Structures are given as C-alpha cells and as structure tokens.
C-alpha cells in the first residue's frame, strides 16, 4: 500500500508533463490532488501497519541478481513517521506555492519528482534502490532552486547540488567497499539492508568506512562543518523549495545516517561516537549563534535549521533508545516547524514585501498589516524554541535525556544552544513583525495583499500537526519506539539501551 505513495507521485509528474504549457490552474490542481492522494495513502498505509516494530515488506522482487540487488520496499515505524512527514510537507508546500505563475507545470513537475524520490528513499530496504532514489532527488532540487529561486539562485543551486553529489559519492565508495567485504563473508552478493546488518564487518574496516558513509549522509543533514550549503541553498530556493529542503531533504541525510551507516557498522559508530556528538553540538551552538546576527530573515531560519538538525545528530550519537527516539521525533517535528517558518517568511512576507532585510521589515509593522502571518510566525517560533505543548519540546527533551548519561558536558552546551535559540527567535519575531521602529510612510500607501486561503490552510495544517504531536507524542512514539527493540537495531544498541 505504501509503495503507492511513490507511484502516485511519479504518475502525477507524468500527467503534469503532458498538460498544455500555459495552464497554470490545471497544473496546480493536478499537483495538489497528487500530493493529497500521496498523503492520504501515507496515512492509511501507516495506520494499517500492524507491527511498527518489525520491518514489514511491501514488495521484494529480484532486480539485478548478479549483484544481489532487489526491488525491495519495506517499512518499519521510522519509515512510517518520515513518510507521513513527507505527505504533510508535500501538501503544505503546494499550498504555499499556489501563486507561482512562471512555468507553473514545470515547477510542480520537478516538485513532485523530488517528493517521489523522497518517498522512495524512506521506503527502500535495498541499498542500491535507496541510493538510486537518494541521487534521484538531486536533480529536481537543482532546477527548483536555479529556475524559481531568488537571491543568488544559480550559485546556491549549484553549491547545493555539488555538495549533495559529493556526499552521495562518499557514500557510494563506502557502499561498494562494504558490498565487496560482505560478499566475501556471506558467500554471495547482497545489497539487502537486513542481510547486510547481520554481517560482522572487520573492526579495522569499519574504522574508516563508517565515517565515510556517515559523513557522506551527514553532509545532506547539515552537519557542521559541512553545512555551508544549507543557509545559501535555503535562502536561494523558492518557498516550497526551502520548505522541502529544510523540512524533508535534510531528513534524508539523517535517515541515511541512521538506517545505513549506523545499522551496518555498529562498532564503527561506537568508535566515532564522541566526535559525532561534538560536531552535532557544534552545529547546535554555531547555527544558533550565527542566526542571532543575521540581517536577512530567511538566513535566520536557514541557520536555525542547521541548529535543529544538530539535535537530530546528537540524538543519533547517544546510541541509547531514548536519544534515538528523540532524534527520529525531532526529524518529524523539525520538518513540520521548518515548513511553517519558511512558509511564513517566504510566502507570506517575501512575496508581498519583496524584501527580507530586517532593516526594511522593521518599518513595515507587519504585525498589524498581516496579523495572520504574525500570529503564525509567533506560534512557529514558539514551537521552534522548543516550548512545551509543541512537538519540538518532546523531541529535544528526549534527545537531552539520552545525551545526559553519555555526554553530560555536551548536553549542557546544547542547553546553551536552546537559550540562544530563544534569543534569535525573539529577535526575529520582534524585528520582523512587532518592532517598535517608527513606521515608514512609504509603506502605508501600499496595503499588502491579504493572506490567501491556501496559505491559511497550509499554515493551520502544519500548526495542528505540531500541536497534536506536542500533546500526544504517543501517536508517533508508538511507531518509533518498538523499532529500536527490533533485531535490526540490536547490535547497535547492545550495551547502551535505556
């Protein structure tokens, strides 16, 4: 059932390509219907899954037997959470892009192609298939930014594409090496993740392969110091692009770290655990600190994404159940919240005011002109700060709990990062919407277009998602938690379960 998310999305791409060139309306409707269909299928498929702890096979057919590759789609609880996130992000992204006029059908075609690839990554349990879907997402990303973006779009797009490509090639090296070694141990070639997770790779081998594969994926997750593509890319991208990039694509990297690097090389993780945690916390603090001094509204959000992903990586580095639970929940939570933040800044503010500079925005009194945007941003900011009641709190809570026993000093630093997070969010709220600067008379002559229905819908949808999970985290925890008790993660957690 869940595989249909992929197929429906790509079918949507096909339909979009066949539409007549200038009919923007038809393009939007087709895209929205496809995304909603995918989202519904994701929800239904996820709820139907009887046993989220186990990996439930969706389809497994031989693909290239000579190298042991199968067309193997499956899902466990972690996949379910991320698939649901993708569904939500896809729909809200389209709602926030309702106003794209320039070459609309191509925009949505690339957009849906990206979504389809993302669904594919989260559902693949064959390494080659996962890699294929992972690489597949790079091209639509590039075109979405280069063609429909704003500030330095071509540079931002190229930087993002190249970083992603380099990262995925680092992973490729590791994968091929692992495939060879596994072949020797298993006696036959295999790219099946579950089979490979049982192979005992030599320790010396894991010592260099694990960092290679982990860093390869972590580049896409925005790990410090390989994060520099993220702020530039997010700022350059059009709103829906940023929402997807920060919301979902960065999670591809983190998912790869968890599903591939950590599951296949458990001893390798342990060897590098401390370094990963240090880099993660560096990202948390650095991202927050730099966000505090930005003049461009979108850069604040871009750096805040780096900071939040630091929490995901910290959670992964704890190697205990609570930390890992928190990491996956943070992936979901930040996906929603980042989508909301970029939706407000990109669509509600920038598309109307055509500026993202705080010095200009301060004089516009946006809190009074577009109050819906102001309130939405405040709520999103509260969620982003990690205040209780929203999903971010539960996630960060668990990550910190998991990190305490293993890295107490780093945990305190992470706490400092949270405080800086409060500071930059407050600054953004103040300067962007509720500043006390004297209003500029020029702006009063041009009343801003009111917030449209699709924007309201998208915003409410995302806020509701964050609130629901904030108050009822069990909804997702019941999917995530059992996974870490399953055989797939046994070797990873042995000796560190909490």
């Amino acid at each position: 059932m869940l595989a249909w998310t992929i197929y429906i999305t790509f079918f949507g791409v096909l339909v979009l390509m066949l539409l007549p060139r200038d009919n923007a309306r038809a393009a939007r409707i087709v895209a929205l219907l496809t995304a909603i269909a995918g989202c519904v299928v994701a929800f239904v498929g996820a709820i139907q899954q009887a046993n989220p702890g186990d990996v439930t096979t969706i389809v497994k057919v031989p693909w290239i037997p000579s190298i042991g590759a199968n067309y193997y789609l499956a899902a466990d609880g972690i996949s379910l959470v991320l698939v649901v996130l993708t569904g939500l992000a896809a729909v809200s992204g389209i709602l926030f892009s309702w106003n794209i006029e320039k070459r609309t059908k191509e925009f949505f075609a690339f957009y849906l192609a990206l979504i389809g690839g993302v669904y594919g990554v989260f559902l693949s349990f064959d390494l080659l298939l996962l890699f294929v879907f992972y690489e597949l997402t790079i091209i639509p990303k590039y075109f979405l930014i280069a063609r429909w973006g704003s500030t330095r779009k071509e540079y931002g797009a190229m930087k993002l594409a190249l970083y992603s490509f380099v990262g995925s090639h680092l992973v490729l090296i590791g994968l091929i090496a692992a495939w060879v070694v596994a072949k020797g141990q298993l006696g036959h070639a295999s790219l099946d993740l579950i089979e490979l997770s049982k192979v005992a790779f030599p320790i010396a081998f894991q010592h260099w392969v694990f960092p290679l594969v982990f860093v390869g994926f972590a580049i896409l997750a925005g790990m410090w110091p390989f994060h520099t593509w993220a702020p530039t890319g997010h700022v350059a991208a059009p709103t829906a692009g940023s929402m997807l990039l920060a919301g979902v694509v960065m999670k591809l990297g983190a998912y790869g770290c968890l599903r591939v690097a950590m599951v296949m090389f458990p001893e390798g993780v342990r060897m590098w655990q401390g370094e990963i945690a240090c880099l993660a916390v560096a990202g948390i603090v650095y991202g927050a600190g730099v966000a505090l001094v930005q003049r461009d509204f979108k850069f604040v959000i871009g750096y805040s994404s780096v900071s939040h992903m630091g929490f995901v990586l910290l959670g992964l580095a704890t190697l205990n159940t609570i930390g890992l639970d928190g990491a996956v929940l943070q992936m979901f939570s930040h996906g929603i919240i980042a989508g909301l933040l970029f939706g407000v800044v990109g669509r509600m503010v920038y598309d109307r005011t055509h500026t993202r500079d705080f010095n200009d925005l301060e004089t516009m009194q946006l809190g009074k002109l577009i109050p819906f945007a102001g309130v939405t941003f405040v709520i999103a900011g509260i969620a982003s700060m990690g205040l209780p009641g929203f999903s971010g709190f539960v996630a960060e809570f668990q990550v910190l709990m998991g990190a305490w026993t293993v890295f107490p000093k780093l945990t305190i630093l992470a706490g400092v990062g949270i405080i800086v997070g409060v500071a930059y969010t407050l600054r953004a709220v103040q300067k962007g919407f509720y500043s006390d600067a004297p209003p500029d008379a020029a702006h009063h002559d041009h009343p801003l277009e009111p917030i449209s229905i699709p924007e309201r819908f998208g915003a409410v949808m995302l806020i509701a998602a964050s609130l629901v999970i904030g108050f009822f985290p069990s909804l997702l925890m019941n999917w995530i938690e059992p996974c870490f008790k399953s055989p797939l993660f046994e070797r990873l957690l042995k000796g560190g379960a909490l």
Partner: protein
Amino acid sequence: MNHWLTILTLVPFIGGIVVAGLGAERKHLVRGLALATSLVGLGGAICLWLHFNAKSGDLQFVEKFDWVPTLGIQYFLGVDGLGALMVLLTAIVTPLAILASWNVEDRPHVFHALVLWLQAGLFGTFTALNFFHWFLFWELGLIPAFFLIKLWGGPKRGPAATQFFIYTMVGSVALLLSFLAIRLATGSFDFIELAGMAKSGVLTTKLQAAFGWKNIGLIIFFGAFLGFAVKVPVIPFHTWLSAAYSEAPSSVTMLLTGVMSKMGVYGFLRILLPIFPDQIRQVLTPLLWLAVATIVLSACAAFAQRDLKRIIAYSSINHLGYCLLALFAATAVATGVNNSDLQKAAALDGALLQMFNHGLTASALFLFVALLERRSGGLRGLDDFGGLRKIIPVFTGLMGIAIFSSLGLPGLNGFVGEFLIFKGVFPLAPWAAAISTIGLLVTAIFLLTLIQRVFCGPLNERWAKMPDLTTSERFLVLPSIALMFVLGIWPQFILGAVDATVVKLVQQLNF
C-alpha cells in the same frame, strides 16, 4: 474520577480562544466575556476551597493517568492546601486585573485572551504534579506574559519583555536539564514519588550511581534552584524584574507580581524543598545569606527609586524574600531547640500566608498606581505629586490601607505573615532573622516616605482638579481592601486550610 481541576484549567483557556476570535470591534462583548470567564474561574476556585478537606494534608481532587508511559510522563493533577491557596489567589487577582484594564483600546480581544491564557497557565502550574506536564504549564505561562509586556507596555517595553523572557528561559532550561537527569537516575517524573525518595535518602544515591560524580546531587539542585530563583526573584537574578514590572501596563503588573512571582516560591515549596532537602542543608548558610541579601538589598534599592512602580517592584522582591527565609530555615536541623517542628510549621505557615497576602496587597498597590496614572496622564514619579490627600481623600485612605498592609501593620493582613515567619525563623536561624529585621525597618522608611511625598506635604498645584475615586473604582478596590482587613483579623481563614499541608511538609523534611 472527578475532573474539577482539568475543567478549572480549561475554562480560561477556552475562554481565551473565544475572546480572541471575537475580533477587535466588539469591545464590550470582549471585555464582558473575559470578565465573565474569570468570574467563573473565581467561582470554581471558591467551590474548590469550600470542598477542600482542611483536616487532611493529603492531595485532593486527584486526577492521574498515563500520558506517554515510555517516558514516565503522566497526567497527574492534585491540590493540597498550598495548591488550593494559590489557585484561589490566581482566581481572585485575575478578575481584578481584567477590570483594571477595562479601558484598553488597542486590540482588546488579544489582550484579554492573553490574560485568560496566562490564568490557564497559572492554574495548570499550581495543580500539576508530574514534571513534564508541570513544565508545560510553567513555560506556557511565559508567552502571554511576554506579549502582554511587549505589545501594550511602556516606552522601553521591547528590551524589558525580551530580558524577562530570556532570563526565565535560562532558568527553565537549567530546570529542564536537572529534571532530565533526575528521571534518568530514578526513572520518575512524579513529584510525590521523588519526594519520597529524597526522604529515604535514596535519591542522592541513585543520582550518584547514575552519573558517577560525588556531588552530582548538588549540581542538579543548582540547576533546579536557578529555574526558580530567577522567577521569585532572588538576588542576584532579579535584574529583569524592575524593568518588566515598570514597563508592563499596570494591570499586567498586577498579575505579574500578584501571581506569577508566586510561581517561583511555589516551585521552591512544591519541588525544591521536598526533593532536595539534603542539598539545601548542605548549602544552607549561603542560601540563608541569599535570602537575607534579597530582603535587605531590595529594600534599600526600593528606597532609592523615584518611580512608584519601581518602588513597589523592589518591595515585592523584599516581601518574597521573607518567604524564602522561612523556607530555608525550615530545612535546618536545629539543635538545641525545643519543638523545632512547631517552629518550622510556624515559619512555613507564615510563608504561605505571606504569599497570599502579598499577592493581594501588591496587586492592590499596583491597581492604585494604575488609577493614579489614569488621573495624572501617565506620570508616576515620586516627586510628581504632593499633598494629594486634600484632593482625593478616599483614594488616599484606601491606598494608605494597602501601603500599611504592605508595611506590616498589625490588624492588616501583611502583619500576620511576617510575624509567623519571624516567629518560626528566630529559633532556627537567629542571626538571619536578626539581619532581616533591617529589611523591615527600611521597608517602613520607604513606604512612609512614599506616603509623605505623594499624599502629604504641600499640595502640588498641578493636580488641584484631580477627581477622586468613582463609584465603580471604589467597587473595584473594595474586595482587596476588605480581604486585607479580614485576613488581618482572622488569618485562620487561610491557616486553617493550609495547616495540615504544612504539617505534612514539615514531617517530610524531618529526617
């Protein structure tokens, strides 16, 4: 299973949503609905009080069920005497604050909604007994307060609001980290359970076992202490207060000083004392010093102020300092003192009473300042006025009562609390009590100075035509004044209800 407390918390929350949805146009509807909601809350709190079984020190109106079992998070509500008292205080101050802000013109629907949400957050904090959900309400209370200061405050409201928020957040993060550590070590977030562990000495051992540092208990205690110290506030974490209190609109300050500051003391009573008595004992002397410093230095600072609101703000710090003094003294294992239990009970009784009384008195004082500001067009400097008693005698009389209550005149409510505190603390920590009396002295000095400068002396011609209190305003201040007398003469009204709780707390600390 009854759901009193949940309903009590939900009423202002939903009321706030409805009010916000009404829009800026229907001002009268907005104000009326907000007032009605807060009065419903008051009714509910009074019902709670009446049904409260004063003889038992146990938790009542308990609601407890699992929320996220894997993380040890439960939805656990309950009140004992302390909780019921705080709920009542909140319920009394909120309608007064709403009435005081009747004339807010700028986006009244948002203003009143925020006030109601603040009330919901406060109700939630005072009734929650599991850390996660307590912390949720603790933090949730911050947001409305921030916006109330930021959007409707005075000229320097931006920095004041930001400072307030960030200070409190720093404390909250420290608190969060501490409790995460505790959960890791003990597997529990439940305050009651943790108190039990602390009493049997198991808590410290578990913490040491989990983390391997000998002094981990102390470090965790400091984290939690920071969270509450910022809120009360304790010197030296108080610097946010005078800016926030003076920039906030006066009705908001009523809430801030009347109830929100009690959150800090409540935290000490509900969380720090029962869970970390060992650690408090270890650092008792420095803590007592801090309490004394808070009392004395804030009084001196108040003396130096020129802005009425700032005077009362620093005076608030001073009054709460007495509560802290009582709390810390109550954990002392006093040697050579007969009936130390009795002394401790007295101190804690005094602290609780002081909390309630100060809430009442301080909010009344700020209300009076608001009324004065209305008449003076925003001026509230000490030197702006003079000889007002000739022009506005009723106002003078009523505000005078409030000031004397704050001063601690016998017969008014302020006296009883302070008396009990000193009665309890003197035997337990004599030198601390002795030095704190300086605070009493300085308070008297600056409050009398206030009366002298504002109301007595030569008439400031500028205010010759100042109108006295209108009938509606008299009705507004009447309840507070009445309560000041009632509680001054018959403190048993409160003490009767909380005594059992206090005794239980003392037993808790007795080891």
